[in-house]
């Protein structure tokens, strides 16, 4: 079953992957592959190669996963790649060498880490991808790895749009603060929002739809227009400066859709600096569900925020147990993200990160 993975094989697969991406095809790496089985045990050693610890969301994710593993009496082999894809590849290799039972992998980049998933597969170690997926041209969930667990960014965008349309009665001149250009989270949060307002939104994963999934809108919202859209790189200070300038050039704006809470808080600071009342003159909606954002909702400054849950511990461990027991595991597991607005922010602020 086990194959010795030589450097030449890795190179071949790498080239194959590149060629496949170029042609838009999937290279069938291993025909009829199945994710490596996991023995049922009382305790597991879990490899957890984290991408970085630089922001509150990441830290909350790390704490959730580590504390859940430890609470179950399992062992965690933790690594921190400190925002380096190379380091994360090395971390996965070291976890494979240490013969961990399974790996919870938040892949920093989708294509390079697909190679790491392939190596784990070759070594017979099941991988669960957290919060980001890996390149489906190289490996696929249910075949070379068990599954992807994370949020549906497209749905997050639609939920923000649904709330904004309801709150403004379908009339708004919107400034959109985009996340980092090229980031999946930013692209999908924008698409979901735009599609919902255009009346073309349909849930991306009908089989994994939850109670939170918005119903497709009956028709387009013709009174809601995105009058300006510009990147703020998910950073509060950039969100503030960009919004300040856009709002000054488009004083008719009545709403802000920010791709994360930090940029929304930046926009709120800019509004206050210009003597406007956020929540009244301009309605702000965003995504993330951070503690600062919930406080801003309680203060009446932020309208609402769609949670993008960092609390992966329980769902990841439950999925692993189910997989070991031989139960069928969906290839895409979508987190049940909450929705925070004035009605529940005070209730949930203590559980926000």
């Amino acid at each position, binding site marked *: 079953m086990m194959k010795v993975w030589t450097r030449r094989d890795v190179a071949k697969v790498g080239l194959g992957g590149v060629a496949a991406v170029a042609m838009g095809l999937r290279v069938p790496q291993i025909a009829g592959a199945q994710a490596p089985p996991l023995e049922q045990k009382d305790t597991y050693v879990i490899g957890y190669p984290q991408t970085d610890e630089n922001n509150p969301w990441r830290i909350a994710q790390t704490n959730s996963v580590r504390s859940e593993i430890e609470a179950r009496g399992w062992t965690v082999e933790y690594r921190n790649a400190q925002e380096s894809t190379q380091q994360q590849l090395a971390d996965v290799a070291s976890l494979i060498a240490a013969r961990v039972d399974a790996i919870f992998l938040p892949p920093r980049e989708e294509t390079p880490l697909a190679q790491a998933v392939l190596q784990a597969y070759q070594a017979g170690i099941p991988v669960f991808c957290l919060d980001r997926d890996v390149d489906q041209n190289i490996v696929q969930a249910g075949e070379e790895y068990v599954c992807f667990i994370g949020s549906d960014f497209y749905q997050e965008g639609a939920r923000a749009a649904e709330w904004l349309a309801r709150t403004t009665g379908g009339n708004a001149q919107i400034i959109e603060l985009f996340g980092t250009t090229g980031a999946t989270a930013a692209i999908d949060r924008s698409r979901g929002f735009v599609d919902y307002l255009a009346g073309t939104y349909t849930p991306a994963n009908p089989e994994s739809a939850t109670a939170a999934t918005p119903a497709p809108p009956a028709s387009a919202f013709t009174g809601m227009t995105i009058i300006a859209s510009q990147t703020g790189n998910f950073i509060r200070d950039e969100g503030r400066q960009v919004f300040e300038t856009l709002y*000054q050039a488009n004083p008719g704006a009545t709403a802000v859709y920010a791709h994360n809470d930090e940029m929304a808080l930046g926009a709120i600071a800019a509004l206050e600096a210009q003597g406007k009342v956020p929540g009244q003159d301009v309605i702000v909606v965003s995504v993330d569900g951070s503690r600062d954002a919930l406080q801003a909702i309680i203060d009446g400054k932020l309208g609402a925020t769609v949670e993008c849950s960092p609390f992966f511990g329980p769902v990841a461990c439950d999925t692993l147990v189910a997989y070991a027991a031989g139960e069928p595991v969906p290839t895409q597991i979508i987190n049940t993200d909450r929705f925070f607005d004035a009605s529940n922010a005070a209730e949930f602020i203590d559980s926000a990160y």
Partner: protein
Amino acid sequence: MASNLSSPAAGSTTSSGRTAIGSIGRSYGGLAALLLLIAYNAVFNAGAFLTVSSLRINLTQVAEIAIVATAMTLVIATGGIDLSVGSLMAIAGSIAPLILLSSAAPWDVPFLGGALAYVIPILVVAAFGAANGFLVASLRIQPIIATLILFISGRGIAQVIAGGRLKSFDEPGWQVIGQGRVLGIPVQAIIMVVVVVTAAWVLKRTVFGRYVLATGGNEEAARLAGVPVVRVKYAVYIVSAMLAGLAGLISIAINSASDPANVGQDMELNAIAAVAVGGTSLLGGRATIVGTFIGALIIQLTGYTLLTEGLSDATVRIVTAGAILGAVLLQRRAR
């Protein structure tokens, strides 16, 4: 210092006279570019541009770059460069919230906590500035390498200080440097003007200013003429660090949060660009603070113009680079 006053001052009279005239000439290119930008906005973007709020926004946004670039001009005038300013902003920005949020503060005196939250971060980064000075002046390591060390490590230090995470706070009194206004003018704009005017005066009218230019012009000659080159270099790196620290505090005050991973990101490059556009020679020995201020305004106004025109971030970067190149070329022709 006073004992050395006569000889270097006499020795550099001609060169500083030339510098005064030259600085006007060198500022022309930048000034022309700035006037062009203003004219463009006044014609095509009048509704949004010719307003008090646009003036206020541009002033608040340019303040951090202008403050850092002013000090950068002094460093560059000595023939050096300071790549660590962005990281120093992050360090200062990560220390202040620790003091502001400290509940175990052993003091009950009003304002003392707030005052310490200004003073301690700036003193700490001043020490880092002295470390830069030590590497450059005492160990004679090339400035670009010497300050690269803190450029790389400084952000890490800031993240360690902050426990790796963004810290938010709400201290309206303390945040006056980022959010306050005096007679409608943003406080950070006032700080910027004070910094620019003081530095311009120091460079033009004081012995220290002449020492700075003499050090950058011909270090060996300056040393032989009695200029305390080592002390001058220490001084400019310390000033650079302290003004970067001040800019860092302004940044976190506006945002009510300190994000060690992002405070002052790219600041070193923006500041160097402002200095270059302004007409200061990167070889040292010639410098114009007013030119640097104009350079900072050009960079700010270019970004503002493109953003209000609705261009994408990628386009903004490319066009800004073009504007910098254009301004530098104009400034060369004027010379």
